[in-house]
């Protein structure tokens, strides 16, 4: 979904960069360049640039490739924000899993080797309008939140994987313990499993819908038929074994003699 938005936030970045300068990196004695914002600009630019690329490209496979780079850059953003687990998760699930299947699908269905999708001009305007309106909505929402306007409130660079693991089994770290003796609240395990089972059902459904009732090719039919009864016993008994080894060579049937 992120790819489809004609979201060109390069103009927006200049406005809010100082606000987002979260200092995940410890404040280093570096005058001048704030590395974090430089990298942030880089990754954000990449993500949006390739998102525009996805929309603008007309070659399906190129579209898929730009989507890969766009989501890869988003993973970079997560790493920058200190959410390493989320970044790795994005890389593995989104880029390594979903997009591999997407490129797979694109490759297999592209009838002409490079099928290209040329949207008509009316579609383009419609898309531009929808995109622009959504962008406007997002911008107003982003600017209305004061907390975001303030300079970054130093995120504690706590390791990110273990709290998530603990949260699964109920030890919630996001909110301070609410005084209840057990301290633990219900973990995320159950909803997590439900969602994965749901996804499985969706996949099976998709495979079922895509099936085609097809007659086997006639040759395949007799291949199946002939393949079935071929047990070694059947083949062996059919072998006519001539008694012993006759030293004399074959005679022509016409001349006579023989065995």
């Amino acid at each position, binding site marked *: 979904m992120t790819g489809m938005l004609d979201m060109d936030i390069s103009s927006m970045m200049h406005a809010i960069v100082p606000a987002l300068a979260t200092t995940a990196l410890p404040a280093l004695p570096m005058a001048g360049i704030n590395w974090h914002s430089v990298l942030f600009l880089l990754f954000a630019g990449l993500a949006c640039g390739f998102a525009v690329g996805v929309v603008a490209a007309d070659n399906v496979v190129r579209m898929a490739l730009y989507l890969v780079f766009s989501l890869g850059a988003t993973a970079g953003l997560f790493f920058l924000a200190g959410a390493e687990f989320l970044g790795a998760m994005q890389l593995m699930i989104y880029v390594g899993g979903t997009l591999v299947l997407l490129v797979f699908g694109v490759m297999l269905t592209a009838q002409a080797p490079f099928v290209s999708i040329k949207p008509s001009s009316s579609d383009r305007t419609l898309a531009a309008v929808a995109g622009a309106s959504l962008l406007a909505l997002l911008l107003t929402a982003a600017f209305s939140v004061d907390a975001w306007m303030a300079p970054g409130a130093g995120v504690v660079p706590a390791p990110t994987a273990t709290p998530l693991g603990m949260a699964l089994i109920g030890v919630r770290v996001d909110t301070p313990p609410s005084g209840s003796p057990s301290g633990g609240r219900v973990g995320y395990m159950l909803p997590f499993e439900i969602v994965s089972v749901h996804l499985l059902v969706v996949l099976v459904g998709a495979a079922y819908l895509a099936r085609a*009732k*097809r*007659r086997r*090719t006639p040759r*395949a039919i007799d291949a*199946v038929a002939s393949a079935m009864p071929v047990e*070694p016993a059947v083949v*062996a008994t059919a*072998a006519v074994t001539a008694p012993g080894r006759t030293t004399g060579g074959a005679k022509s049937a016409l001349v006579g003699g023989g065995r």
Partner: protein
Amino acid sequence: MSNLIDDDPRIIEFDVRTDEMLVNMGPQHPSTHGVLRLVLRTDGEIVSETEPHIGYLHRCAEKIGENVTPRQWIPYTDRLDYLAAMNMNLGWALTVEKLMRHGVGEKARHLRVLIAELNRIASHLVGMGAYGLDLGTFSPFLYAFREREKILDLFEEACGARLTYSYLTVGGATADLPPGWLQKCEAFLDQFEPIIKEYHALLTTNAIFVKRTAGVGVLSREMAIDYGCSGPVLRGSGVDQDMRRDGESLYTGMYDGYTFEVAVQKDGRYPRDHTYPSVPKEAVLGDCWHRFFVRMLEVVQSMDLVRQSIDRYAACREPLGEPLKLAEKLPVGDAYLETEAPKGQMGFYIVGNGTPIPWRVRARSSSFSNLSVTHELCRGCLIADVPAIVGSLDIVMGEIDR
């Protein structure tokens, strides 16, 4: 009737909607043993139809045979099955001798058995090595060629050439064996005997090799005979036929006094399987594994024959005998003789009309018929099985295209 078809489970195939693709395997393809082009109709990985296209190496040797005398055609027989040139020479020489009713001395007879069986070992070694290549393992190929080099050295000493020998000719051989050759040949056999176990360990009993070959490309007995297959392909399907024992009396006469067992599975047992790995349970009679195994047994069978022929050849005192004169007139009439070449039954047919130059020469190639089974065997197999099946037929394009 139509609903009957719809209900029959073998007819209906649930599969993701895909369309078929025509793929060319060859003529330049690493695993097609020379210039063979296989057009595969594939649906994903499943090959639904295979169509071999041959003729890329066609030199019309038979037309040349009508312009040269029989002895001059010997070099052309070398280039038919260039991996077993000696057996080709032998086949043609015997056919011409049959037409001319020209006998050969005892010494020449034993020499011919010695050389022909040695060449069979070399040919089967190439077959085994190349088959390992088809299945993806490179090392057996080099082991096989290391041994084959030693045989080629022996042939080089005997007749000066390593691949196209033109050594066995009409009326015997072009020259007698040099002194000391027999000892070298015996030394080769002695050091080759234990190495056979290495090949069995590398390939025959290798779990992945068995998985790739057992039960793949099953050729039933009836289909093998119907398609005119011969040699290890026929014996791999359990047909007990070997021209050295069942062929023309002129050819089997050459093997008089030699004791050997035909390498074929009779009622579930291979001859002398005490010294060889047992047949894996997945292997069905007539599959790629059996064809490969028959070749491995024939290597040992040929080694025994070579040892016997060395003793008999050494016992003969009289000279080798002169080969036929070049301008010898051919009697009117025709003669056809099939010999047991390493790849199968190689037939030669000659029509004489009184002049030294034959009126018609015909070479019946064993690989030609063996290859014609491919479209039956490769139906419904995977792409990776096609080289496995074609490799197990052990074809040589020179012999097929002539």
